[in-house]
Protein backbone atom coordinates (compact mmCIF):
# COMPACT_ATOMS: atom_id res chain seq x y z
CA UNK A 1 0.00 0.00 0.00
CA UNK A 2 2.93 2.31 0.62
CA UNK A 3 3.81 1.86 -3.03
CA UNK A 4 0.36 3.03 -3.93
CA UNK A 5 0.82 6.29 -2.07
CA UNK A 6 4.30 6.93 -3.36
CA UNK A 7 3.85 5.98 -6.98
CA UNK A 8 0.62 7.24 -8.44
CA UNK A 9 1.87 6.41 -11.91
CA UNK A 10 1.84 2.74 -10.99
CA UNK A 11 -1.94 2.86 -10.94
CA UNK A 12 -4.14 2.95 -14.00
CA UNK A 13 -7.03 5.33 -13.52
CA UNK A 14 -9.92 4.38 -15.77
CA UNK A 15 -12.88 6.74 -15.90
CA UNK A 16 -16.09 4.74 -16.05
CA UNK A 17 -18.04 5.34 -19.29
CA UNK A 18 -20.57 8.09 -18.83
CA UNK A 19 -21.69 9.10 -22.32
CA UNK A 20 -25.39 9.63 -22.62
CA UNK A 21 -25.90 8.65 -26.27
CA UNK A 22 -25.64 5.02 -27.18
CA UNK A 23 -23.04 5.32 -29.98
CA UNK A 24 -20.54 7.18 -27.79
CA UNK A 25 -21.37 4.86 -24.99
CA UNK A 26 -20.57 1.78 -27.04
CA UNK A 27 -17.25 3.31 -28.10
CA UNK A 28 -16.39 4.26 -24.55
CA UNK A 29 -17.34 0.83 -23.31
CA UNK A 30 -15.09 -0.84 -25.89
CA UNK A 31 -12.14 1.41 -25.03
CA UNK A 32 -12.75 0.91 -21.36
CA UNK A 33 -12.74 -2.88 -21.55
CA UNK A 34 -9.66 -2.84 -23.79
CA UNK A 35 -7.81 -0.64 -21.32
CA UNK A 36 -8.83 -2.89 -18.48
CA UNK A 37 -7.64 -6.00 -20.31
CA UNK A 38 -4.34 -4.39 -21.27
CA UNK A 39 -3.60 -3.01 -17.84
CA UNK A 40 -0.70 -4.65 -16.07
CA UNK A 41 -0.95 -2.37 -13.08
CA UNK A 42 -3.54 -1.99 -10.33
CA UNK A 43 -6.67 -0.25 -11.56
CA UNK A 44 -8.78 2.54 -10.14
CA UNK A 45 -12.26 2.51 -11.63
CA UNK A 46 -13.37 6.10 -11.36
CA UNK A 47 -17.13 6.69 -11.26
CA UNK A 48 -16.75 10.43 -10.73
CA UNK A 49 -18.04 11.27 -14.24
CA UNK A 50 -21.24 9.28 -13.54
CA UNK A 51 -24.09 10.95 -11.70
CA UNK A 52 -25.65 7.59 -10.98
CA UNK A 53 -25.55 4.06 -12.36
CA UNK A 54 -27.97 2.62 -14.87
CA UNK A 55 -28.63 -1.07 -15.38
CA UNK A 56 -26.16 -0.95 -18.32
CA UNK A 57 -23.50 0.49 -16.03
CA UNK A 58 -24.02 -2.28 -13.52
CA UNK A 59 -23.86 -4.84 -16.30
CA UNK A 60 -20.58 -3.36 -17.51
CA UNK A 61 -19.23 -3.22 -13.98
CA UNK A 62 -19.96 -6.90 -13.45
CA UNK A 63 -18.27 -7.65 -16.76
CA UNK A 64 -15.21 -5.73 -15.54
CA UNK A 65 -15.09 -7.70 -12.34
CA UNK A 66 -15.36 -10.93 -14.33
CA UNK A 67 -12.38 -9.78 -16.45
CA UNK A 68 -10.15 -9.11 -13.48
CA UNK A 69 -11.36 -12.03 -11.39
CA UNK A 70 -9.02 -14.55 -12.94
CA UNK A 71 -6.03 -12.22 -12.92
CA UNK A 72 -3.85 -10.87 -10.22
CA UNK A 73 -5.07 -7.33 -10.84
CA UNK A 74 -5.90 -5.15 -7.89
CA UNK A 75 -9.01 -3.02 -8.38
CA UNK A 76 -10.43 -0.20 -6.31
CA UNK A 77 -13.47 1.98 -6.96
CA UNK A 78 -13.81 5.72 -6.66
CA UNK A 79 -17.49 6.35 -6.22
CA UNK A 80 -17.51 10.08 -6.91
CA UNK A 81 -20.98 10.51 -5.49
CA UNK A 82 -22.96 9.18 -2.57
CA UNK A 83 -25.66 7.85 -4.88
CA UNK A 84 -23.10 5.73 -6.70
CA UNK A 85 -21.66 4.56 -3.41
CA UNK A 86 -25.12 3.50 -2.25
CA UNK A 87 -25.68 1.55 -5.48
CA UNK A 88 -22.30 -0.15 -5.16
CA UNK A 89 -23.33 -1.33 -1.71
CA UNK A 90 -26.86 -2.34 -2.74
CA UNK A 91 -25.54 -4.46 -5.58
CA UNK A 92 -22.87 -5.92 -3.24
CA UNK A 93 -20.21 -4.88 -5.74
CA UNK A 94 -18.53 -3.01 -2.88
CA UNK A 95 -17.80 -6.37 -1.30
CA UNK A 96 -15.63 -7.26 -4.31
CA UNK A 97 -13.31 -4.27 -4.13
CA UNK A 98 -12.77 -1.31 -1.83
CA UNK A 99 -14.64 1.94 -2.50
CA UNK A 100 -13.22 5.42 -1.96
CA UNK A 101 -14.81 8.81 -2.31
CA UNK A 102 -12.03 10.33 -4.44
CA UNK A 103 -8.87 9.37 -6.30
CA UNK A 104 -6.81 11.24 -3.71
CA UNK A 105 -8.37 9.17 -0.98
CA UNK A 106 -7.71 5.98 -2.91
CA UNK A 107 -4.06 6.91 -3.35
CA UNK A 108 -3.58 8.16 0.19
CA UNK A 109 -1.49 6.24 2.70
CA UNK A 110 -3.41 3.50 4.46
CA UNK A 111 -3.55 5.50 7.72
CA UNK A 112 -6.13 7.79 6.17
CA UNK A 113 -8.24 4.82 5.28
CA UNK A 114 -7.89 3.52 8.79
CA UNK A 115 -9.05 6.84 10.24
CA UNK A 116 -12.03 6.90 7.92
CA UNK A 117 -12.74 3.32 8.82
CA UNK A 118 -12.79 4.26 12.50
CA UNK A 119 -15.18 7.11 11.73
CA UNK A 120 -17.48 4.70 9.93
CA UNK A 121 -17.39 2.28 12.84
CA UNK A 122 -18.36 5.14 15.13
CA UNK A 123 -21.34 5.79 12.86
CA UNK A 124 -22.22 2.11 13.01
CA UNK A 125 -22.30 2.25 16.77
CA UNK A 126 -24.95 4.93 16.44
CA UNK A 127 -26.96 2.44 14.44
CA UNK A 128 -27.09 4.40 11.27
CA UNK A 129 -24.37 3.04 9.01
CA UNK A 130 -22.91 -0.29 8.15
CA UNK A 131 -20.39 0.84 5.59
CA UNK A 132 -17.87 -1.70 4.48
CA UNK A 133 -16.57 0.41 1.69
CA UNK A 134 -13.50 1.85 3.36
CA UNK A 135 -10.56 -0.35 3.92
CA UNK A 136 -6.91 -0.65 4.52
CA UNK A 137 -5.04 -3.20 2.56
Amino acid at each position, binding site marked *: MEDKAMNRAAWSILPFPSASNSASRRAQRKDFLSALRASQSPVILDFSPCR*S*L*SFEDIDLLLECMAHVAGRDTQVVFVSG*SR*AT*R*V*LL*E*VTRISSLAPVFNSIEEALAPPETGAVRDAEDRAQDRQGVSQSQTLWSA
Partner: protein
Amino acid sequence: MVPGGDDFTGMRAARPHGLAAFASPRAPYSSRLPILGNDVLQSWTERVRKLGVQSLWLASGAGVQAATSALAEFARQGIERLLVIELKSYAEMDLADLVRFHCERRSPVTEAHDAGGQLGVRLLDRPALRASGEKHESSCPPTDSVQTPYQFSGYSKRILSARERQELVADGLTGACAMRPLGTQIREQVWIGEDVKVATSARILGPTYIGARTVIRAGATIGPFASVERDCVVDCGTTVERSTVLPDTYLAPGLLIRNGLVDGGHLEHLGWGAAADLESAGLGNRIPRRGSSRNPFSAATTDACSRGDNALVPNFALSSSAPQPWLQVQL
Protein backbone atom coordinates in the same frame (compact mmCIF):
# COMPACT_ATOMS: atom_id res chain seq x y z
CA MET B 1 -49.15 26.64 8.71
CA VAL B 2 -48.12 23.48 6.93
CA PRO B 3 -44.63 24.11 5.69
CA GLY B 4 -43.77 22.18 2.56
CA GLY B 5 -46.96 20.19 2.54
CA ASP B 6 -48.66 19.42 -0.75
CA ASP B 7 -51.64 17.82 0.87
CA PHE B 8 -53.08 18.07 4.26
CA THR B 9 -55.71 16.43 6.37
CA GLY B 10 -57.92 18.21 8.79
CA MET B 11 -60.28 17.21 11.51
CA ARG B 12 -62.95 19.19 13.22
CA ALA B 13 -64.80 18.08 16.30
CA ALA B 14 -68.43 18.82 16.88
CA ARG B 15 -68.03 18.96 20.64
CA PRO B 16 -67.00 20.09 23.16
CA HIS B 17 -64.72 22.40 21.19
CA GLY B 18 -64.18 22.98 17.54
CA LEU B 19 -61.27 20.68 16.88
CA ALA B 20 -59.29 20.06 13.75
CA ALA B 21 -56.21 18.29 12.55
CA PHE B 22 -54.11 18.61 9.44
CA ALA B 23 -51.55 16.40 7.80
CA SER B 24 -48.67 17.49 5.68
CA PRO B 25 -47.23 14.53 3.82
CA ARG B 26 -44.06 15.13 1.89
CA ALA B 27 -42.92 13.21 -1.09
CA PRO B 28 -41.72 10.57 -1.07
CA TYR B 29 -42.84 9.57 2.43
CA SER B 30 -46.48 10.37 2.87
CA SER B 31 -47.77 10.47 6.42
CA ARG B 32 -50.44 7.98 5.26
CA LEU B 33 -47.89 5.30 4.40
CA PRO B 34 -48.13 2.49 6.94
CA ILE B 35 -45.61 1.94 9.71
CA LEU B 36 -45.54 -1.72 10.74
CA GLY B 37 -48.91 -1.89 8.99
CA ASN B 38 -50.32 0.91 11.15
CA ASP B 39 -51.90 4.13 9.97
CA VAL B 40 -50.67 7.10 11.99
CA LEU B 41 -53.87 8.98 11.16
CA GLN B 42 -55.78 6.20 12.88
CA SER B 43 -53.57 6.56 15.94
CA TRP B 44 -54.37 10.27 16.16
CA THR B 45 -58.05 9.63 15.48
CA GLU B 46 -58.18 7.30 18.47
CA ARG B 47 -56.66 9.98 20.66
CA VAL B 48 -59.14 12.57 19.41
CA ARG B 49 -61.98 10.11 20.05
CA LYS B 50 -60.85 9.76 23.66
CA LEU B 51 -61.55 13.47 24.12
CA GLY B 52 -65.23 12.73 23.56
CA VAL B 53 -65.19 14.24 20.13
CA GLN B 54 -67.81 12.74 17.82
CA SER B 55 -66.77 14.03 14.47
CA LEU B 56 -63.74 15.50 12.86
CA TRP B 57 -62.72 16.94 9.57
CA LEU B 58 -60.14 15.52 7.27
CA ALA B 59 -58.84 17.93 4.73
CA SER B 60 -56.63 17.72 1.71
CA GLY B 61 -55.57 20.65 -0.34
CA ALA B 62 -52.68 22.48 -1.81
CA GLY B 63 -50.36 23.02 1.08
CA VAL B 64 -49.89 26.08 3.21
CA GLN B 65 -52.42 28.32 1.52
CA ALA B 66 -55.21 25.79 1.66
CA ALA B 67 -54.51 24.95 5.28
CA THR B 68 -54.47 28.57 6.30
CA SER B 69 -57.64 29.37 4.45
CA ALA B 70 -59.24 26.30 6.04
CA LEU B 71 -58.47 27.70 9.48
CA ALA B 72 -59.94 31.03 8.52
CA GLU B 73 -63.08 29.26 7.37
CA PHE B 74 -63.43 27.53 10.73
CA ALA B 75 -63.16 30.95 12.41
CA ARG B 76 -65.90 32.28 10.16
CA GLN B 77 -68.10 29.36 11.21
CA GLY B 78 -67.81 30.48 14.81
CA ILE B 79 -65.63 27.65 16.07
CA GLU B 80 -64.35 28.57 19.53
CA ARG B 81 -61.41 26.24 19.78
CA LEU B 82 -59.60 24.14 17.25
CA LEU B 83 -57.16 21.27 17.68
CA VAL B 84 -54.87 21.14 14.67
CA ILE B 85 -52.79 18.03 14.10
CA GLU B 86 -50.39 17.99 11.20
CA LEU B 87 -49.75 14.39 10.35
CA LYS B 88 -46.02 14.70 10.54
CA SER B 89 -45.36 12.92 13.80
CA TYR B 90 -46.38 9.92 15.84
CA ALA B 91 -46.69 10.92 19.47
CA GLU B 92 -48.20 8.99 22.36
CA MET B 93 -49.79 12.14 23.65
CA ASP B 94 -52.68 12.52 26.06
CA LEU B 95 -54.67 15.17 24.22
CA ALA B 96 -56.86 15.76 27.28
CA ASP B 97 -53.74 16.89 29.11
CA LEU B 98 -52.91 19.23 26.25
CA VAL B 99 -56.41 20.73 26.38
CA ARG B 100 -56.15 21.08 30.17
CA PHE B 101 -52.80 22.83 29.85
CA HIS B 102 -54.18 25.14 27.18
CA CYS B 103 -57.19 26.12 29.29
CA GLU B 104 -55.06 26.77 32.35
CA ARG B 105 -52.62 29.01 30.49
CA ARG B 106 -55.40 30.95 28.71
CA SER B 107 -53.13 31.42 25.75
CA PRO B 108 -54.71 31.79 22.30
CA VAL B 109 -52.30 29.21 20.86
CA THR B 110 -50.68 26.21 22.51
CA GLU B 111 -48.11 24.29 20.50
CA ALA B 112 -46.84 20.85 21.51
CA HIS B 113 -43.08 20.41 21.49
CA ASP B 114 -40.71 17.61 22.27
CA ALA B 115 -36.94 17.77 22.61
CA GLY B 116 -36.68 18.03 18.82
CA GLY B 117 -39.05 20.97 18.46
CA GLN B 118 -42.64 21.33 17.25
CA LEU B 119 -44.68 18.16 16.85
CA GLY B 120 -47.33 19.70 14.62
CA VAL B 121 -50.02 19.55 17.32
CA ARG B 122 -51.57 22.80 18.49
CA LEU B 123 -54.68 24.25 20.03
CA LEU B 124 -56.02 27.53 18.74
CA ASP B 125 -58.69 29.70 20.28
CA ARG B 126 -61.03 31.83 18.22
CA PRO B 127 -58.89 35.01 18.33
CA ALA B 128 -55.92 33.05 17.02
CA LEU B 129 -58.04 31.51 14.27
CA ARG B 130 -59.32 34.91 13.25
CA ALA B 131 -55.77 36.25 13.25
CA SER B 132 -54.65 33.33 11.07
CA GLY B 133 -57.35 34.15 8.56
CA GLU B 134 -56.50 37.83 8.51
CA LYS B 135 -52.81 37.11 8.08
CA HIS B 136 -53.62 34.73 5.25
CA GLU B 137 -55.75 37.31 3.50
CA SER B 138 -53.14 40.03 3.89
CA SER B 139 -50.33 37.64 2.88
CA CYS B 140 -48.42 38.48 6.07
CA PRO B 141 -46.18 35.82 7.52
CA PRO B 142 -47.65 34.24 10.65
CA THR B 143 -46.23 35.29 14.00
CA ASP B 144 -45.69 32.90 16.85
CA SER B 145 -45.40 35.53 19.53
CA VAL B 146 -48.56 34.43 21.38
CA GLN B 147 -47.75 30.71 21.36
CA THR B 148 -47.39 28.81 24.60
CA PRO B 149 -45.24 25.69 24.31
CA TYR B 150 -46.61 22.47 25.73
CA GLN B 151 -43.56 20.37 26.49
CA PHE B 152 -44.29 16.74 25.70
CA SER B 153 -41.94 14.27 27.32
CA GLY B 154 -43.57 11.04 26.15
CA TYR B 155 -42.73 8.95 23.11
CA SER B 156 -42.65 10.79 19.77
CA LYS B 157 -41.12 10.41 16.33
CA ARG B 158 -41.39 12.46 13.16
CA ILE B 159 -42.74 10.16 10.48
CA LEU B 160 -41.73 12.30 7.50
CA SER B 161 -38.08 11.72 8.31
CA ALA B 162 -36.72 8.43 6.98
CA ARG B 163 -34.38 8.06 9.90
CA GLU B 164 -37.00 8.66 12.62
CA ARG B 165 -39.41 6.46 10.73
CA GLN B 166 -36.89 3.63 10.91
CA GLU B 167 -36.36 4.37 14.61
CA LEU B 168 -40.10 4.09 15.14
CA VAL B 169 -40.08 0.75 13.32
CA ALA B 170 -37.29 -0.53 15.57
CA ASP B 171 -39.09 0.72 18.68
CA GLY B 172 -42.36 -0.86 17.57
CA LEU B 173 -40.65 -4.18 16.93
CA THR B 174 -38.95 -4.22 20.31
CA GLY B 175 -41.83 -2.86 22.37
CA ALA B 176 -40.14 0.45 23.14
CA CYS B 177 -43.30 2.31 22.11
CA ALA B 178 -47.02 1.56 22.14
CA MET B 179 -47.24 0.92 18.39
CA ARG B 180 -47.44 -2.79 17.63
CA PRO B 181 -46.96 -4.50 14.27
CA LEU B 182 -50.28 -5.14 12.57
CA GLY B 183 -50.30 -8.88 12.00
CA THR B 184 -49.83 -12.26 13.58
CA GLN B 185 -46.82 -12.94 15.71
CA ILE B 186 -45.42 -16.21 14.36
CA ARG B 187 -42.46 -16.38 16.68
CA GLU B 188 -40.55 -14.15 19.02
CA GLN B 189 -40.35 -10.63 17.53
CA VAL B 190 -41.55 -11.75 14.09
CA TRP B 191 -44.93 -10.57 12.80
CA ILE B 192 -46.56 -11.20 9.45
CA GLY B 193 -49.70 -9.81 7.86
CA GLU B 194 -52.39 -11.71 5.96
CA ASP B 195 -51.55 -13.79 2.88
CA VAL B 196 -47.81 -13.35 3.20
CA LYS B 197 -45.77 -15.84 1.17
CA VAL B 198 -42.32 -16.72 2.42
CA ALA B 199 -40.17 -19.24 0.52
CA THR B 200 -38.91 -22.15 2.57
CA SER B 201 -35.31 -21.16 1.99
CA ALA B 202 -35.85 -17.53 2.98
CA ARG B 203 -34.57 -16.47 6.40
CA ILE B 204 -36.60 -14.24 8.67
CA LEU B 205 -34.55 -12.80 11.51
CA GLY B 206 -36.43 -11.03 14.28
CA PRO B 207 -37.27 -8.43 15.15
CA THR B 208 -39.03 -8.15 11.83
CA TYR B 209 -42.39 -7.30 10.30
CA ILE B 210 -43.72 -8.46 6.93
CA GLY B 211 -46.89 -6.75 5.75
CA ALA B 212 -49.96 -8.29 4.12
CA ARG B 213 -49.68 -10.00 0.72
CA THR B 214 -45.92 -9.51 0.57
CA VAL B 215 -43.88 -12.18 -1.16
CA ILE B 216 -40.42 -13.17 0.07
CA ARG B 217 -38.69 -15.34 -2.50
CA ALA B 218 -36.08 -18.07 -2.19
CA GLY B 219 -32.87 -17.31 -0.38
CA ALA B 220 -33.91 -13.84 0.73
CA THR B 221 -33.05 -12.65 4.23
CA ILE B 222 -35.36 -10.27 6.06
CA GLY B 223 -34.20 -8.74 9.32
CA PRO B 224 -33.17 -8.04 11.87
CA PHE B 225 -34.95 -4.71 12.47
CA ALA B 226 -36.65 -4.83 9.10
CA SER B 227 -40.12 -3.83 8.06
CA VAL B 228 -41.35 -4.88 4.65
CA GLU B 229 -44.79 -3.31 4.33
CA ARG B 230 -47.80 -4.63 2.42
CA ASP B 231 -47.85 -5.82 -1.23
CA CYS B 232 -44.07 -5.97 -1.72
CA VAL B 233 -41.95 -8.55 -3.51
CA VAL B 234 -38.43 -9.25 -2.28
CA ASP B 235 -36.75 -11.34 -4.94
CA CYS B 236 -34.33 -14.23 -4.55
CA GLY B 237 -31.27 -13.75 -2.40
CA THR B 238 -31.94 -10.16 -1.46
CA THR B 239 -31.20 -9.07 2.11
CA VAL B 240 -33.24 -6.41 3.89
CA GLU B 241 -31.63 -5.49 7.18
CA ARG B 242 -32.30 -2.56 9.55
CA SER B 243 -34.43 -1.09 6.81
CA THR B 244 -37.97 -0.29 5.81
CA VAL B 245 -39.52 -1.21 2.48
CA LEU B 246 -42.64 0.83 1.81
CA PRO B 247 -45.77 -0.68 0.20
CA ASP B 248 -45.92 -1.86 -3.41
CA THR B 249 -42.18 -2.12 -3.83
CA TYR B 250 -40.34 -4.72 -5.89
CA LEU B 251 -36.71 -5.48 -5.02
CA ALA B 252 -34.60 -7.33 -7.59
CA PRO B 253 -32.58 -10.47 -6.78
CA GLY B 254 -29.32 -10.41 -4.89
CA LEU B 255 -29.47 -6.95 -3.36
CA LEU B 256 -28.25 -5.77 0.00
CA ILE B 257 -30.58 -3.21 1.54
CA ARG B 258 -29.02 -2.13 4.80
CA ASN B 259 -29.83 0.98 6.84
CA GLY B 260 -32.15 2.17 4.14
CA LEU B 261 -35.68 3.16 3.32
CA VAL B 262 -37.00 1.96 -0.02
CA ASP B 263 -40.07 3.43 -1.64
CA GLY B 264 -40.65 1.91 -5.06
CA GLY B 265 -37.58 2.79 -7.12
CA HIS B 266 -36.24 5.25 -4.56
CA LEU B 267 -33.72 4.29 -1.89
CA GLU B 268 -32.58 6.55 0.91
CA HIS B 269 -29.51 5.43 2.82
CA LEU B 270 -30.00 6.46 6.42
CA GLY B 271 -26.34 6.44 7.37
CA TRP B 272 -24.92 8.40 4.46
CA GLY B 273 -27.86 10.70 3.92
CA ALA B 274 -27.81 9.75 0.25
CA ALA B 275 -30.56 8.74 -2.12
CA ALA B 276 -30.22 6.43 -5.10
CA ASP B 277 -32.46 5.64 -8.01
CA LEU B 278 -33.01 1.88 -7.99
CA GLU B 279 -35.39 1.95 -10.90
CA SER B 280 -32.96 3.24 -13.53
CA ALA B 281 -30.41 0.76 -12.24
CA GLY B 282 -32.96 -2.02 -12.75
CA LEU B 283 -32.81 -2.93 -9.08
CA GLY B 284 -36.30 -2.07 -7.90
CA ASN B 285 -39.52 -0.37 -8.80
CA ARG B 286 -43.07 0.43 -7.79
CA ILE B 287 -45.49 -2.45 -8.36
CA PRO B 288 -48.53 -1.07 -10.16
CA ARG B 289 -51.79 -2.00 -8.44
CA ARG B 290 -55.06 -2.03 -10.30
CA GLY B 291 -57.60 0.35 -8.84
CA SER B 292 -55.32 1.62 -6.13
CA SER B 293 -53.99 5.08 -5.67
CA ARG B 294 -50.79 6.40 -4.18
CA ASN B 295 -52.76 9.48 -3.24
CA PRO B 296 -52.78 9.58 0.54
CA PHE B 297 -56.48 10.36 0.42
CA SER B 298 -58.52 8.12 -1.84
CA ALA B 299 -62.21 8.12 -2.50
CA ALA B 300 -63.04 5.03 -0.49
CA THR B 301 -63.01 7.06 2.67
CA THR B 302 -66.11 9.03 2.02
CA ASP B 303 -68.42 6.01 2.16
CA ALA B 304 -66.77 4.52 5.20
CA CYS B 305 -66.81 7.86 6.93
CA SER B 306 -70.48 8.37 6.23
CA ARG B 307 -71.15 4.91 7.70
CA GLY B 308 -69.34 6.00 10.82
CA ASP B 309 -66.91 3.11 10.67
CA ASN B 310 -64.82 2.74 13.74
CA ALA B 311 -62.18 0.79 11.90
CA LEU B 312 -59.20 2.43 10.28
CA VAL B 313 -59.89 5.88 9.03
CA PRO B 314 -59.87 4.97 5.36
CA ASN B 315 -58.34 6.88 2.57
CA PHE B 316 -60.31 9.55 0.86
CA ALA B 317 -59.81 11.83 -2.08
CA LEU B 318 -60.81 15.39 -2.46
CA SER B 319 -61.06 16.56 -5.99
CA SER B 320 -59.59 19.87 -6.94
CA SER B 321 -63.08 21.07 -7.77
CA ALA B 322 -64.42 20.30 -4.29
CA PRO B 323 -66.06 23.37 -2.74
CA GLN B 324 -64.20 22.85 0.54
CA PRO B 325 -60.84 21.22 1.11
CA TRP B 326 -62.13 19.01 3.91
CA LEU B 327 -64.46 16.14 4.64
CA GLN B 328 -66.44 15.36 7.78
CA VAL B 329 -65.79 12.03 9.48
CA GLN B 330 -68.03 10.57 12.20
CA LEU B 331 -66.06 8.83 14.92
